[in-house]
């Protein structure tokens, strides 16, 4: 019983062994890009739009609305990163229904890579919105004694992000595999359906948490900048 698709080697291209994780990651990437390109070909701003365009508009609009509420800011600057996270994780979790497909998110390597992307994006967005000094000042607010707690908190929430996604998806696949040995027909199907639900919920939670972390790095700087301008105006 394999705990992760990392150990299953599918192809060997010369010296490189491609395991199931990387192959199915490429499959998900290919599907996302193909779907987007196919819809983009027939894109119109008429009243009559194709079903694919309708679906994508609903998804993108929904994501923009959620990001706008979380960030209290224009959503488009965050939409590319957070939206991609959500779409990749959601599609790879939903496609577990396809026989033979192993979700790449069931591998700790994939989830850790995604969590590291979020970890890197927080200072990138924070510094681009606020500048290096403004972003670093957050770490010593409200007092410089909080500096180690902020750092440890950032590291632990990144690891928690990775383990949460990995644990949920791997557990779903493992339960179905174990139940196949015990109660062959009905129960594994029910657990597979539950796995779809938890996969979508985990994709949403991953994206929402990424947005919350980014917003806390950019918004707190807004609040301090506002209070600083108010304080300087009160002095003058």
């Amino acid at each position: 019983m394999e705990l992760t698709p990392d150990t299953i080697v599918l192809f060997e291209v010369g010296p490189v062994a491609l395991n199931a994780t990387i192959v199915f990651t490429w499959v998900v990437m290919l599907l996302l890009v193909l779907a987007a390109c196919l819809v983009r070909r027939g894109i119109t701003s008429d009243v009559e739009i194709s079903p694919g365009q309708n679906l994508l508009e609903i998804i993108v609009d929904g994501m923009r609305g959620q990001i706008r509420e979380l960030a209290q800011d224009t959503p488009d600057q965050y939409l590319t990163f957070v939206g991609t996270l959500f779409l990749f994780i959601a599609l790879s979790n939903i496609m577990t229904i396809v026989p033979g497909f192993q979700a790449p998110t069931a591998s700790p390597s994939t989830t850790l890579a995604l969590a590291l992307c979020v970890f890197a994006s927080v200072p990138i967005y924070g510094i681009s919105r606020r500048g290096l000094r403004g972003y670093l000042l957050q770490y010593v607010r409200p007092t410089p004694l909080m500096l180690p707690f902020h750092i440890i908190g950032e590291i632990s929430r990144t690891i928690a992000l990775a383990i949460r996604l990995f644990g949920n998806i791997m557990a779903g696949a493992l339960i179905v595999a174990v139940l196949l040995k015990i109660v062959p027909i009905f129960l594994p199907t029910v657990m597979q359906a539950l796995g779809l639900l938890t996969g979508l919920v985990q994709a949403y939670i991953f994206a929402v948490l990424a947005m919350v972390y980014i917003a806390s790095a950019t918004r707190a700087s807004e609040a301090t900048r506002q209070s600083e301008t108010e304080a300087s105006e009160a002095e003058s």
Partner: protein
Amino acid sequence: MAGIELVAVVSIIIGGLTIMIGSIGPAFAEGRAVAQALEAIAQQPDESGTITRTLFVGLAMIESTAIYCFVVTLIVLFANPFWNYFVEQAGR
């Protein structure tokens, strides 16, 4: 009891205990969280979007501890380095 048997017995017992105790706390906490969220939605139905979203984020955080325990149990039962060491020794 020889080393290999001791490792097997302790691994099985600890595997069961870990997931047993590790799921009680989060279950209680999530129950309280959902109860409070339902109360809040009943008091302010207009804000149900924000409340639901915050509820899901909070539930994910609470669930994390249960998942840590689950991952430890899986490691102890299926990818146990001590058991693997003894199996290797026995194989020689």
